[in-house]
């Protein structure tokens, strides 16, 4: 599919670029310490990876070149070939070629068209070096010298002195090489000081070099021509002189990768990596900004100055957009964790010898990354449970007339500003009777109470700590079910867990989690002179309740809402601020909680606001009634009611 090719090409581009950066660094280090075996291994592995990726996206020329480079590196790391300048140089050239190829790909062009000749030549060049016989004297320098050792140069520097690297290449038939080298240095020493030579002096004296050597020379002379004239001789084939300036390693890396950098600078990267810590900071700042924006709005209104009001409106607009963008930048597709799950299910199924058909739906749904991260474990728990406890064995399924292959579906969809994630299976379902008897056994219920429970309440027991209907501990799901842990995790994120099941047919575990963290739309209400925030996502409706509309059912106050009978209470009573309902009338909010509705009477509607949720810390958090706290426009703290935990 076209989409997939682009995705893999983009992945190839960004991953290869990372490899190329580390390749450059490693190769530079290798030049300084040619005997480090770890570096060669590292370079070899990177090249190997690039080869594999290139082959996978059909970039055969890149793969071929990387393959040859890999061969060369392999021989080098196995010491079948001696490491010398030509090999290092050709690998740098290979890196440069790869950088160009990647740039072409990123621009949507095919490197195999544009870089064909370069690629072919370079590949041949690498091949020749790979095939070179052991101990070949093709190199002009017997030592690899890339970096300049300024620790030996700096002590000799004075004001007005210059540092040169003088590279001498002797004629092929020179007799008395070391004497010739000595003469060169002796001459240079008349005009300055020699910091060091490559190879070292003692090696030069012992004739441990082929034809070339370098002299690092500090002098007040500023003419390369002049220096050359002093040491030139019929016995010297070539002299190269360049001024040396101290570079930090960074500058050295930069110089080497100039081509990559200029290319990168010319293209706009489509993605950058941002640390999650930074995103969290941004988030907090925006949160604070939102609060002050609200305050400004209020003050602007009070000032009755239209100029100020206009400016504040503008600021408000921009802040909203900023908030939106920051939130969006924290969003990450669920595929980030979803894509790992097929493997989880497969492994569990294998161990338990069950055949599972696993489907993923809604992996494109985007969610705040911190919430998503917290979801991973609970979901793995639920999936493993589905396969382990939820699914019958193949034999059992057959006997029941079910398909041998069990079905497990993980789906995610957006509902208002929350995500509804469902783990569904067509297994044995949950036996309500078993739960009831277990609960009675544990002393949590009397027989009579048990018979009055609805399905939801029965299932709630499943998630109670200490409860477990697992017959035995299995390798896959361990002790018990961990459902209580899952539930508390979800709730700590401001989400909820509910269970639906049909004995013999299957189960559904429904998770509601917020998509975005920390800034929510809330309905502010006043109850008993306190302002509370109710999450808009759960507010169904508000209206003025008349006393005559209140009925009594089973001793409890109720009203009819959308053809349903739902309970109604004063919010203040629910929050235990007052002990008596008093007259049941007035502004009322109908809230949705876990699939059912409930109505709460308040004193006064204050308004709708976007609020920044701050978690309750320490001992305040023991009471699950509140999911957090926020600051109102007036700067007052207000509690955010966790509707799911209000007693009905």
């Amino acid at each position: 599919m076209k989409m997939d090719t682009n995705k893999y090409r983009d992945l190839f581009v960004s991953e290869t670029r990372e490899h190329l950066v580390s390749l450059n660094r490693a190769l530079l280090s290798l030049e300084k310490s040619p005997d480090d075996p770890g570096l060669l291994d590292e370079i070899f592995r990177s090249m190997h990876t690039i080869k594999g990726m290139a082959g996978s996206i059909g970039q055969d020329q890149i793969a071929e070149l990387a393959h040859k480079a890999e061969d060369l590196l392999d021989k080098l790391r196995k010491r079948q070939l001696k490491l010398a300048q030509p090999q290092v140089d050709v690998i740098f050239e290979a890196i440069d070629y790869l950088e160009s190829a990647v740039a072409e790909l990123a621009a949507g062009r095919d490197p195999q068209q544009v870089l064909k000749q370069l690629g072919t030549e370079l590949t041949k060049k690498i091949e020749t070096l790979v095939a070179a016989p052991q101990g070949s004297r093709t190199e002009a320098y017997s030592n690899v010298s890339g970096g300049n050792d300024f620790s030996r140069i700096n002590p000799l520097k004075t004001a007005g002195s210059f540092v040169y690297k003088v590279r001498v290449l002797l004629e092929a038939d020179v007799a008395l090489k070391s004497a010739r080298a000595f003469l060169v240095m002796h001459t240079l020493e008349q005009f300055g000081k020699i910091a060091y030579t490559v190879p070292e002096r003692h090696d030069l004296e012992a004739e441990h070099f082929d034809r070339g050597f370098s002299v690092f020379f500090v002098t007040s002379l500023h003419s390369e021509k002049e220096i050359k004239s002093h040491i030139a001789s019929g016995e010297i084939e070539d002299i190269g002189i360049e001024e040396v300036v101290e570079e930090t390693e960074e500058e050295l890396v930069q110089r080497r990768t100039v081509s990559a950098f200029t290319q990168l600078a010319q293209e706009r990267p489509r993605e950058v990596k941002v640390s999650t810590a930074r995103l969290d900071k941004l988030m907090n700042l925006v949160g604070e900004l939102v609060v002050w924006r609200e305050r400004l709005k209020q003050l602007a209104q009070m000032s009755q100055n239209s100029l100020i009001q206009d400016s504040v409106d503008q600021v408000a607009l921009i802040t909203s957009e900023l908030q939106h963008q920051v939130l969006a930048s924290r969003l990450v597709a669920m595929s980030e964790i979803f894509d790992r799950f097929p493997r989880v299910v497969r492994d569990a199924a294998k161990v338990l010898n069950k055949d599972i058909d696993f489907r993923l739906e809604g992996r494109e749904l985007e969610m705040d990354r911190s919430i998503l991260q917290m979801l991973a474990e609970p979901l793995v728990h639920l999936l493993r449970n589905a396969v382990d406890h939820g699914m019958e064995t193949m034999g059992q399924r057959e006997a029941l007339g079910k398909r041998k292959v069990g079905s497990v579906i993980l789906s995610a969809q957006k509902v208002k500003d929350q995500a509804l994630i469902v783990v569904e299976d067509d297994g044995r379902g949950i036996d309500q009777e078993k739960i009831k008897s277990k609960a009675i056994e544990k002393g949590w219920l009397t027989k009579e109470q048990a018979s009055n429970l609805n399905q939801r309440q029965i299932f709630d027991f499943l998630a109670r700590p200490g409860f477990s209907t697992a017959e035995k501990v299995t390798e896959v799901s361990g002790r018990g079910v961990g459902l209580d842990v899952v539930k508390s995790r979800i709730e700590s994120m401001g989400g909820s867990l509910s269970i639906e099941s049909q004995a013999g047919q299957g189960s559904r575990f429904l998770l509601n989690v917020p998509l975005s963290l920390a800034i929510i739309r809330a309905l502010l209400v006043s109850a008993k002179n306190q302002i509370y925030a109710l999450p808009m996502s759960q507010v169904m409706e508000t209206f003025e309740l008349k006393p005559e509309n209140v009925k009594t059912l089973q001793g409890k106050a109720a009203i009819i809402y959308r053809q349903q009978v739902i309970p109604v209470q004063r919010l203040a009573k629910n929050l235990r601020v007052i002990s008596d309902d008093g007259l049941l009338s007035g502004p009322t909010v109908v809230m949705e909680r876990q699939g059912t509705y409930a109505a709460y009477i308040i004193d006064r509607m204050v308004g709708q606001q976007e609020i920044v949720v701050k978690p309750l810390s320490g001992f305040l958090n023991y009471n699950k009634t509140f999911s957090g706290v926020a600051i109102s426009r007036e700067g007052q703290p207000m509690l955010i009611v966790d509707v799911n935990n209000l007693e009905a």
Partner: protein
Amino acid sequence: MGHRVLVVDDAIFMRTMISDILKKGDFEVCGEGATGAEAVEQYKKLKPDLVIMDIIMPDMGGIEAVKAIMQSDPNARVLMCSAMGQQALVVEAIQAGARDFVVKPFQPSRVLEAARRVLQIS
């Protein structure tokens, strides 16, 4: 007018060969010597532009001779002749003040080129 050269070697054969090379290169051989001592003496007498001198000689070897000549004339230009395997001696000679060296068996072009360079003529 050619530059004036003093040729010093204990073997007549070598002196003749070097002289022939130098004459072809438009140099003037103004004197000859067979020992280090003769080299020092002839130098004082003739004041040549250049001395070509062998390293191994009886009655004051080349190195000592270089030292002595340099002492009498710090601007003296001496070109040493060496055989294979005499690296350490060449180094010593250079340290003593010799400007360059050529290795036997000679290549005429090398000899001339070295001579010209020591004299700083192109």
